[in-house]
């Protein structure tokens, strides 16, 4: 049995401007105990997919299952199996961290004594025991995210949904949260996370589904996806923008990126010298040349035709607001 199963999920929002297909056709399976990443730019349909799988949004067509339970017809049972930390789930800033854990535990049906114990455990787990009795409004962004993660764990869920868990965090806080997410996976929790950060998907996910414009465009482990691109990526830096354009016309399959020339080849070490010769013979001055294994960004470029980093897409949260 898969921990999560999405089958031809589709979501259409009705807006004043007409119907908008936020999710066109998304299918994937998440194995028990793995971290599964959904990678894509804003507006790709990641959050909408998560909302449907967590019972918070009606599915237009297709189906979703959590631990074998149908999210549309068994939503109450599904909620008991899952923990959810959405981008826009809120935390009551006027309460303390301890009060929030205690209140959440009581709402999940813990006795007063057990709610106290669970609060203490989680305060330690997410690393905020010293701030336990401070109001949340005094917490840093990183502390709030860790608290949010902790709140989604109160009832010991089997499957955890994290929607862009580190968006807006500084690198240090992001690293702390990554370590906690890995620790949870090692403890047996299945995690489905969305991210628009390539590094995050690479670091955390056992398998990744790349989503673009509401469709799954690639799926596999980070290594499998990189192998799909094949070979190495050679990057040439030239002395002027004009020469980069000239160089592109000389090397078949090359692309210009950030004023550098990039070309994917089977063997980078072997191919640098002849390509370098071609450029210098044409009086183009090469400042530097390097060969690297493909990154997830290269994968993204290959499957979508554009790079994820710096991609400007409509904000899907805005879309949801419009659809109301």
């Amino acid at each position, binding site marked *: 049995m898969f921990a999560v199963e999405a089958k031809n999920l589709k979501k259409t929002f009705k807006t004043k401007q007409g119907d908008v297909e936020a999710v066109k056709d998304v299918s994937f399976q998440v194995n028990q105990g793995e971290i599964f990443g959904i990678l894509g730019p804003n507006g790709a349909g990641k959050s909408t997919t998560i909302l449907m799988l967590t019972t918070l949004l009606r599915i237009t067509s297709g189906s979703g299952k959590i631990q074998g339970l149908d999210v549309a017809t068994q939503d109450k049972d599904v909620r008991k199996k899952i923990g959810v930390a959405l981008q826009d789930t809120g*935390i009551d800033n006027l309460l303390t961290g301890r009060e929030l854990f205690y209140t959440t535990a009581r*709402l999940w049906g813990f006795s007063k004594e057990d709610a106290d114990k669970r609060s203490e455990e989680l305060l330690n787990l997410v690393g905020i025991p010293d701030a336990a009795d401070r109001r949340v409004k005094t917490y840093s962004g990183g502390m709030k995210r860790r608290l949010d993660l902790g709140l989604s764990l109160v009832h010991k869920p089997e499957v955890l949904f994290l929607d862009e868990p580190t968006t807006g965090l500084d690198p240090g806080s992001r690293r702390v949260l990554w370590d906690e997410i890995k620790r949870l996976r090692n403890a047996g929790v299945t995690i489905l996370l969305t991210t628009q950060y390539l590094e995050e998907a690479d670091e955390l996910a056992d398998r990744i589904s790349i989503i673009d414009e509401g469709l799954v465009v690639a799926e596999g482990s980070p290594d499998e996806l990189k192998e799909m691109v094949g070979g190495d990526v050679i990057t040439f830096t030239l002395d002027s923008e004009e020469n980069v354009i000239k160089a592109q016309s000389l090397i078949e399959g090359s692309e210009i990126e950030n004023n550098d020339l990039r070309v994917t080849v089977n063997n980078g070490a072997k191919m640098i010298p002849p390509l370098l010769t071609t450029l210098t013979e044409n009086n183009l001055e090469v400042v530097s040349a390097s060969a690297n294994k493909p990154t997830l960004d290269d994968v993204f470029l290959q499957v979508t035709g554009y790079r994820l980093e710096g991609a400007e897409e409509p904000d899907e949260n805005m879309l949801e607001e419009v659809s109301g």
Partner: protein
Amino acid sequence: MDNKISASFFLQLGILTKRLILRVIRRPLAELPNIFISAFFLFVYDGALGGVFGGSAAGTPFDFAKGNFVNFILPVSIVSASVSGGASGVYLVEDIESGVFKRYQGMPISKWAIILAPILVGGLRVLIQAGLILTIGVIIGANPAAGTLGYFAVLGIAFLWGMGFAGYSVAAGVRSGSSQGAQAASFLFFPALFLAPTFTPRYALKGWLQTAASYNPTTYVIEAMRAIMIDGWVTDLITKGVLFSGGFALLTLTFAVVSAKKATEKA
């Protein structure tokens, strides 16, 4: 440690209500304006009109306060204080705007508990604010003809009336999804309070206002409280007050529940 996965409805309601009470307690300044305005009305109306319609009106046709104008005007301030229940919708809207509402939707919590908790807190605020105004009234000379039980009767009617505003506020809040929408209850305040026998008995109002007042449920609430304060247990007036305030509460609570049902349905 084995949790039952979800708490009972009443436990959920209790936990959510306690949480909102903590929020109210931690923002005490937000409570002050309404108490201040209600107390201000009491002092100013008594100061401005008490001289004419108080003890010196004895033996004249204007002796409707029967010598104690504080008894006559106190219900107006209490009704004004009971509008504080109108802030209830704001609690819910704050939760919607902050995403706390969405968190609760993802948990096995009754949506009725989520909706009723702010209404209940609104009712409690009304009791406290109306109680404070009543205390001030007693200090400056109010003395209910119905005796000590009269205080509780006045508070009970104020509670029902305030719950009515709370229900309206919650409905407006969930329908509009904005704090402004939730505060719309306060716009009802002026017509509700002043198209009524606020400063004189109904019979002394001009024709058009007398007609308007007869259609305004506030009229019956104020008249019931005045009966308790001035004349004692006047059954028909008190019954009307309870029926109108209870009916208003029932109506707006139903409106809130229907609105909330619509708002909590999945998109």
